[in-house]
């Protein structure tokens, strides 16, 4: 699964908003992806999977991406596990210095924001939280749930 949220700026209307997109990897084996230690750039930039759902505040394509949050995990991991991983990643001590893609409990996370936000750590964290909330909203409304626990 690849879940991503973008803060987008559309020059033609000077409008800004957050768009979120959800992909699944249920249509192939994808042997190049190690789901226990997912490579976020590989998935986000080359093998995102099958695009299944979106939630857009800016409807028109072609907007500039001011910030983005990429989340990569197994399809069946479930929203609660994803949310817990995001909570672990959003530790402000981590966000003070932009970090390379990070794996938290099997969830690959990558976050990047414009220079203006990076220079203000508090706002940088607020931006991460805003993107994470939009991504989680899309994931939860998409109906993807964790499998029942085995006994």
């Amino acid at each position, binding site marked *: 699964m690849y879940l*991503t949220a973008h803060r*987008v700026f559309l020059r033609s209307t000077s409008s800004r908003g957050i768009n979120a997109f959800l992909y699944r990897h249920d249509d192939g084996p994808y042997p190049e992806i190690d789901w226990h230690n997912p490579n976020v750039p590989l998935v986000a*930039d080359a093998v995102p999977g099958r*695009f299944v759902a*979106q939630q857009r505040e800016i409807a028109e394509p*072609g907007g*500039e991406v001011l910030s983005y949050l990429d989340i990569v995990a197994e399809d069946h991991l479930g929203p609660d596990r994803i949310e817990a991983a995001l909570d672990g990643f959003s530790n402000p001590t981590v966000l003070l210095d932009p970090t390379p893609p990070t794996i938290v409990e099997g969830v690959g996370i990558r976050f990047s924001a*414009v*220079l203006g936000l990076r220079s203000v750590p508090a*706002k940088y964290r607020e931006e991460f939280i805003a993107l994470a909330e939009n991504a989680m909203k899309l994931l939860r409304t998409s109906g993807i749930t964790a499998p029942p626990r085995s006994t």
Partner: protein
Amino acid sequence: MSEALRRYLELDDELVAVRWRYAGNESDEEDQLLDEMDGVWWQLSESERDELRARLPRSLLRPRAPQPGRRAEIEADLVEGSHEVPRRLREVG
């Protein structure tokens, strides 16, 4: 911190982001922010103005204009069921 100083610093943060977004080029958003900052400036106390003059607002650090061929990340036009990536790098002149 006075309310006026808090607002001035907030506007300064926004100005940094706007100047980054427009890669150093002037914009209507920048004009509006500067107008509001001018108004708030005169609500500051003399000591607050001295403090700001001494530390030079970060927004004065205007980034350079974009160079030919510089790349920007833009959102792709996605079709459900496709395997297109959501962001693409675009050359800008």
